[in-house]
């Protein structure tokens, strides 16, 4: 028997960002034995703390005409009708309640003179509904939720533990095999229900705006455990991310603030304002999918700026006005500190992978097709369709996280205590142990960091902002070779304590899985819609493609099926 610490649980949450913390808090209202596993430092790692500004919820404070119904309609329309409309309805209705719940845990938001939350305008929304806390909304939310989770006695938190394998069983319980980064020892969680809140996997792209942790671990784990993934072809590219100069100390998405709040000009190397030309109201109307594609076209067609972006310029505005706007979040001064005076010269900005709209296919209870396996947050598909609106992530993770946690708790309540499946678990543990030993013993071979870099290059080229069938096929076959090489040749240093290469190896393997799902789904969808733009099929085709593409693991491969979207609340207008 492989030596491993054992833990019996009602609910295990994998991934400690905002959705995971929320899931743990809600699961703990139902059951007593809840654990949250985070591969980094809980409350700090992941993508939630990187949320800069907006968290959308239709309170209607800024304009009483706003309502959850209108928020739902915006989300579906801008999601290009790929969303699960039932999920969007739940999300937009519950978002204000969840924001109030956060406030009850001590969250702080910017308020007006009447003490009501300020609400800002975001592109693609029809009303101002972005709640915010300076430019630190994400860290504030994560800090609040982490404190709440740590003070909840039913929740045990495991930091710097990464889950490498799930053993699921029809009748339950499920097992999650974890490794402690501190000393490479195993820890096995037996849980009646597992909630995956590991976020997306934008790290599979060379240019991205996310935390290094965002490697699609949970999606890969549940896919291999038999869960269905949906909408994996839809990866959001952020249109105006940092390009040049680098802005350490500001978010990778910081330039967007100049675009939306200040009213910057966006132009190519010839000085042409291409966005303005295509869409005069682009400042508040151009959603991320359209703007990213427009910018990327300028770059690949040779009209980009020297560092591979386009120019974002506020020098035409009175400097005093810019400085006043840029007091917000201390942007102006921080940029000045690193040698950039935005009132004097433009900056270069570019597209960068930002968010997965796709993920685990879940129902309204956050359940996947595998009984007892749940997902929430960015790891769950259906909320954002083919394109996510700015400000919808931070509020969606609260709703989907709380629901997945609650229903996982309810599920765990009705599942009897069982101890079956130990034999399979032992086999998988032994296999994992043997694999790690092999990686350590090799003196030459593929270092995981190099494998990761190869994936990032490959995905950027083959499944990036602008896609084509033959390129995606090439990408898929290169990935298969890379995986084969990995299986034969992966090599890590022998260190037992805090071995970054060991963590990188598992992330590499997860990234291969997730990347291949993106490519497979991308190949199936022969049209352009939202974030999925195909040069060989440049137009949307509602007649044929109002479907979700669903992937499951099958014997020796991947099973692909499509299912029509249920247009229960809103239909595209002809």
């Amino acid at each position: 028997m492989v030596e491993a610490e054992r833990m019996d649980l009602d609910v295990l949450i994998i991934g400690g960002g905002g959705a995971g913390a929320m899931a743990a808090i809600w699961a703990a209202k139902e059951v007593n034995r809840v654990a949250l596993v985070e591969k980094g430092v809980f409350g700090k790692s992941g993508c939630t703390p990187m949320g800069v500004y907006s968290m959308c919820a239709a309170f209607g404070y800024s304009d009483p005409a706003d309502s959850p119904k209108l928020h739902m309609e915006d989300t579906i329309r801008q999601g290009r009708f790929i969303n699960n409309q039932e999920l969007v309805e739940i999300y937009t209705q519950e978002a204000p309640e969840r924001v109030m719940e956060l406030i009850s845990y001590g969250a702080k938001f910017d308020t007006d003179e009447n003490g009501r939350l300020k609400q800002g305008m975001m592109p693609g929304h029809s009303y101002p509904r972005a709640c915010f806390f300076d430019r630190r909304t994400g860290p504030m939310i994560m800090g609040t939720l982490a404190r709440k989770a740590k003070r909840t006695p039913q929740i045990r938190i495991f930091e710097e533990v990464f889950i490498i394998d799930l053993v699921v069983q029809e009748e339950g319980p499920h097992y999650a095999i974890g490794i402690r980064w501190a000393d490479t020892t195993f820890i096995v969680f037996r849980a009646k229900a597992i909630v995956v809140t590991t976020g997306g996997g934008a790290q599979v792209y060379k240019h991205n705006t996310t935390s290094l942790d965002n490697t699609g671990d949970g999606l890969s784990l549940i896919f291999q455990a038999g869960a269905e993934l949906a909408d994996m072809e839809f990866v959001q590219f952020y249109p105006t991310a940092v390009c040049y100069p680098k802005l350490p100390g500001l978010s990778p998405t910081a330039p967007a603030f100049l675009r939306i709040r200040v009213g910057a000009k966006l132009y190519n190397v010839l000085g042409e304002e291409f966005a303005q030309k295509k869409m005069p109201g682009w400042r508040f109307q151009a959603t991320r999918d359209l703007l990213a594609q427009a910018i990327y076209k300028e770059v690949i067609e040779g009209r980009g700026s020297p560092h591979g972006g386009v120019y974002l310029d506020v020098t035409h505005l009175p400097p005093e006005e810019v400085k006043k706007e840029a007091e917000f979040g201390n942007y102006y001064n921080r940029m000045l500190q690193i040698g950039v005076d935005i009132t004097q010269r433009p900056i270069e900005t570019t597209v960068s992978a930002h968010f997965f709209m796709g993920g685990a296919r879940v129902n309204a209870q956050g359940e996947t097709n595998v009984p007892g396996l749940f997902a929430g947050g960015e790891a769950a598909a259906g909320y954002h369709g083919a394109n996510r609106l700015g400000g919808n992530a931070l509020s969606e993770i609260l709703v989907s996280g709380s629901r997945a946690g609650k229903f996982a708790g309810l599920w765990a309540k009705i599942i009897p205590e069982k101890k079956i499946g130990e034999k399979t678990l032992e086999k998988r543990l032994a296999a994992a142990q043997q694999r790690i030993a092999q990686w350590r013993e090799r003196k030459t071979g593929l270092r995981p960091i190099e494998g990761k870099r190869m994936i990032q290059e490959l995905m950027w080229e083959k499944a990036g902002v602008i896609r084509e069938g033959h390129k995606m096929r090439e990408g898929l076959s290169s990935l298969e070779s890379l995986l084969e090489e990995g299986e034969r040749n992966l090599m890590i240093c022998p260190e037992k304590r805090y071995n970054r290469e060991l963590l990188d190896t598992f992330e590499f393997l997860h990234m291969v899985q997730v990347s291949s799902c993106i490519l497979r789904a991308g190949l199936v969808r022969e049209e352009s819609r939202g974030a999925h733009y195909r040069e060989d099929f440049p137009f949307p085709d509602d007649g044929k493609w109002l479907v979700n593409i669903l992937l499951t693991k099958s014997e020796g491969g991947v099973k692909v099926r499509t299912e029509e979207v249920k247009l229960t609340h809103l239909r595209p207008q002809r």
Partner: protein
Amino acid sequence: MMEKRETTWIRILRYDPEKNLAPFFQEYVVPYERENTILDSLYYIYRHLDGSLAFRGSCFAGGWCKVCIVKVNGKVLLPCKHFMEKEMVIEPLPGYPVLRDLIVDFAKGKQKINEVQKE
């Protein structure tokens, strides 16, 4: 004539409590890129020179996650927020037990990690 690339000389205080009797400095020479951060240079070492270097880093974006906190040339700072210098001595965050190399136990410090003053 080939242009000589500028370099940065980095000394890192390393320690594995299971293997070493005491902490020791290890030297690395990496290319100097004025637009790269100190954290970029740690990552450069990890990727190109020494896969065994242990350090934390999550957001890599300038001060969001704050887990990369270390001491550089005597100052406690977030290496993701500062550009690299020509000579750097990098040590773990003082006041916290060292778990390995630049990784400390945030839970066992003299003060709360969120309250540590940093540049």
